[in-house]
């Protein structure tokens, strides 16, 4: 690791004070003079033909300014992947889930908007509905989209090597199945958007999103506004975790209503609407076979996935690919076969959520490894280490592990855990388990086919004061990207962090694909570094000309400039600067030239100093169908050990301790890296033990609240030990790569492996409530 002045420290986040004092503004905190309040009418039935929509009464209600349906919105299809645009802003022929959007209104206040909704009359002809993914695949099941017979939204078939032959050659083949439940991201800030349409034809959305760039494109397309006239501004965002990765009906409705009324229009989802919009974790069914030799060498993996997609595609094409591609490592395999099916059902659409597509299948695979190790009488850590990939290895599906501290992660967590004395040796009811995982540091390709840069950054130096203003379209959603970019800019320019300001989340600033696939540290980070280097080089050039010194002799650090490591002769610059700022109270002083004096000189020589940076990954991956999904310039990885106590009488599980080691390359901000690790574990713990979106027999969510849908509270979380492992990633800026999603990968299987160690039973369905574990224990006792 290099000798850094700013990077690799525990600098407080650049936005922390604003957030601690309530000054940070989120979308719902904005209001404007003359602003209208909007609301959306959503289907009360899961599957029905729309016979007629009558909005006349709603339109006549005093205070209502506009009512829109598909008639006004048009029928332009949109979605995430252009290959599966299967949504229109408003349903016109059919509704496909309870919550499908039918109309929107804008009124003087929210109460009037709600009353107007109640006056819209929709005649439905109810159709048979299907809510279970396996039922949906059966012959004769209700058909949700005419274009996708059999409710088959997407199928993936990939094979690397001859898997059946490889399995046949193995000493052991062990099988396992696994079923998770639909999860909700449960970010604390509901979606909110304020749309402003100005008379020149320009639409600005202030919206709670992870992806301003994609929202801009989708809104321009669906509302038929030239893309150059759409600006998306992301204020502070109260968490995203995936579901805020696409344009929402809320954003498009606000935009349309603003366009029609000429007034600012705001709408915020209720918590129930957040659940109805969903786009969160799919339900996955995994079926796997792992073939090994008796010495523990892994040979072949056969993997099948069935995904309950809900009524629309959302991110689902990528999801169903990820369930296969992200099992290629971090173990060496000779052969791998994957068959994935994403199925439509009459429920809210599922999309991307932290650990996109990989979490459930990782949970199955890592349990399967433990089961296999037990069969051949090998310690599960030893078996993992025997097969572990290291830096420079390529997975069987051609993912390039350009740095991989997986082995170091495993060894680190083992060292502090007393594993050898605990595994299999704890009293009944106590258990220890571990698991591994890895994740992309940014998707290798954009969501739409394009040669676009994935990130561009502009840094504009202030004309006075030497402040670097970083302009980026990247999305700070709580993960700390603004701080990351500020630290990279400060390090590169050799200035203190205080002298950097980050302006982010605005499509007018730069192109950035946004906060998903754990991409911004690596990609926006590269562009930020490059922009800062350009500025540093410009300043060095002007200094060299002015002072007649070689460029190579000039260095920048801690806000001062040195010449051949010394002070040099810069008297005339200082004199000039002080003359220019006569009467000011903070003249530059000290034996060295300050950065602000150098920056001032550059301005006087050349006008405003701007640096630009850009990044897109090189061509990555193989040439097989779907090879793009799973590719990344770099991969982060993680290993975790969990200790549990199980009450054998009730099945109640207590997580006693969690230890996580994560290889994030260079940790740009050590505190933020730990924060991502601890947050990932918390989300994984919740999904494992109690989170489940539940439906009644008519497709209505029965727990659409944070009281009934339980996420971990402070009392559910044990103390987590977070260990940062740092490899040096050649494709990352300053050697950095991801932490935001890889850290969730091992959590669920580590808990499940610990539960097995404590109880001797394998639970293959989530969530592992006390009831489920009790029944599993009871069944085993009855069988014995």
């Amino acid at each position: 690791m290099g000798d850094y002045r700013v990077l690799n420290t525990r600098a407080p986040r650049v936005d922390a004070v604003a957030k601690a004092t309530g000054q940070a503004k989120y979308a719902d905190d904005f209001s404007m003079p003359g602003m209208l309040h909007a609301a959306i009418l959503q289907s009360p039935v899961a599957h029905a033909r729309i016979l007629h929509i009558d909005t006349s009464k709603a339109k006549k209600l005093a205070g209502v300014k506009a009512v829109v349906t598909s008639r006004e919105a048009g029928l332009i299809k949109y979605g995430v992947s252009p290959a599966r645009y299967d949504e229109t802003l408003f349903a016109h022929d059919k509704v496909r889930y309870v919550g499908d959007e039918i109309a929107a209104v804008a009124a003087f206040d929210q109460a009037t908007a709600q009353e107007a909704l109640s006056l819209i009359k929709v005649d439905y002809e109810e159709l048979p509905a299907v809510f279970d993914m396996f039922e949906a695949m059966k012959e004769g099941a209700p058909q949700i989209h005419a274009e996708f017979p059999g409710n088959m939204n997407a199928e993936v078939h990939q094979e690397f090597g001859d898997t059946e032959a490889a399995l046949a050659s193995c000493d052991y083949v062990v099988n396992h199945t696994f079923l998770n439940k639909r999860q909700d991201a449960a970010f604390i800030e509901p979606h909110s958007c304020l749309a402003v349409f100005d008379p020149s034809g320009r639409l600005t959305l202030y919206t709670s999103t992870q992806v301003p760039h994609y929202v801009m494109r989708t809104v321009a397309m669906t509302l038929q506004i030239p893309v150059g006239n759409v600006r998306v501004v992301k204020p502070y965002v109260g968490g995203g975790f995936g579901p805020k990765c696409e344009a929402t009906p809320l954003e498009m409705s606000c935009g349309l209503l603003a366009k029609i009324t000429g007034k600012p229009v705001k709408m915020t989802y209720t918590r129930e609407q957040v659940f109805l919009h969903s786009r969160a974790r799919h339900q996955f069914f995994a079926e796997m076979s792992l073939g090994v030799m008796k010495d523990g060498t892994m040979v072949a993996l056969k993997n099948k996935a069935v995904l309950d997609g809900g009524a629309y595609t959302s991110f689902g094409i990528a999801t169903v690919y990820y369930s296969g591609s992200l099992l290629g490592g971090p173990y060496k395999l000779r052969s791998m076969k994957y068959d994935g099916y994403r199925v439509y059902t009459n429920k809210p659409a599922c999309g991307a959520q932290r650990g996109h597509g990989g979490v459930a299948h990782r949970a199955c695979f890592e349990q399967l490894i433990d089961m296999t190790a037990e069969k051949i009488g090998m310690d599960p850590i030893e078996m993992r280490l025997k097969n572990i990939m290291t830096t420079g290895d390529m997975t069987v599906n051609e993912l390039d592990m350009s740095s991989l501290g997986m082995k170091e992660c495993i060894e680190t967590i083992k060292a502090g855990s007393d594993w050898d004395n605990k595994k299999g040796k704890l009293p009944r009811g106590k258990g220890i388990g571990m698991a591994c995982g890895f994740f992309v540091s940014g998707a290798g390709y954009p969501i739409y086919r394009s040669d676009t840069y994935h990130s561009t950054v502009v840094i504009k130096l202030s004309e006075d004061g030497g402040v670097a203003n970083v302009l980026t379209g990247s999305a700070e959603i709580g993960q700390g990207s603004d701080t990351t970019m500020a630290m990279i800019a400060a390090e590169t320019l050799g200035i203190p962090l205080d002298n950097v300001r980050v302006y982010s989340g605005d499509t007018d600033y730069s192109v950035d694909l946004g906060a998903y696939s754990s991409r911004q540290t690596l990609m926006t980070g590269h562009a930020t570094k490059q922009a800062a280097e350009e500025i540093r080089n410009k300043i060095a050039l002007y200094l060299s000309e002015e002072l007649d010194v070689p460029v190579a002799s000039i260095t920048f650090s801690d806000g001062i400039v040195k010449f051949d490591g010394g002070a040099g002769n810069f008297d005339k610059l200082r004199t000039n600067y002080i003359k220019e700022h006569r009467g000011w109270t903070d003249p530059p002083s000290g034996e060295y030239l300050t950065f602000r004096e150098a920056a001032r000189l550059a301005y006087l020589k050349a006008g405003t100093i701007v640096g630009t940076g850009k990044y897109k990954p090189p061509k990555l991956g193989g040439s097989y169908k779907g090879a793009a999904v799973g590719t990344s310039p770099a991969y982060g990885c993680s290993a975790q050990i969990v200790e549990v106590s199980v009450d054998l009488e009730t099945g109640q599980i207590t997580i006693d301790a969690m230890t996580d080691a994560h290889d994030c390359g260079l940790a740009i901000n050590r505190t933020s890296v730990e924060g991502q690790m601890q947050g990932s574990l918390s989300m994984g713990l919740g999904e494992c033990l109690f989170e489940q979106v539940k439906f009644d027999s008519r497709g209505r969510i029965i727990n659409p609240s944070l009281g009934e849908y339980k996420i971990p509270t402070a009392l559910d979380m044990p103390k987590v030990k977070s260990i940062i492992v740092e490899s040096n990633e050649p494709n990352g800026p300053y050697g950095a790569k991801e932490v935001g999603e890889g850290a969730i990968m091992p959590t669920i299987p580590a808990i499940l492996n610990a539960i097995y160690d404590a109880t001797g039973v394998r639970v293959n369905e989530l969530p592992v409530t006390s009831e489920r574990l009790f029944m599993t224990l009871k069944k085993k006792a009855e069988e014995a």
Partner: protein
Amino acid sequence: MKKTIQLTINGQQVQAAVAPNQTLVQFLRDDLGLTGTKHGCGLGDCGACTVILDGRAVNSCLVLAIQADGCDVLTIEGLAEDGNLHPLQQAFVDKGAIQCGFCSPGMILSAKALLDEKPNPTELEIRTAISGNLCRCTGYQKIVEAINEAAEVIRDREES
């Protein structure tokens, strides 16, 4: 029909006319522009709207504005004094207890109500005091550390 209420908010006397069904969080955010108090669920589940009402941390979405008549309300905007961050705010900043920040105002105020009553809380008391404030980002660990540190700073300050 609106009713007139009179209350103290962040040390300032406030008189206002409010609708009988208006919640305290709506009053604070929509009428007074105190948007530091966040609205996360409207059902008292998430704790993002926590304010301190007559010394107790409450969900302001479950309190009607008229119920706050005659009360003393502290919101996040009233916590810093003379431009100096409250020790809890400072500790949340220093310890990395803030990620997205949406739960932070409510979390900080729940912690303040705890420390006002128990200056030297155990970890379990801290976790219990904030168990009604949901955070999806942090896993709570750095929040607990921050509250611990703030408690220490406040105790030291009061001793000296």
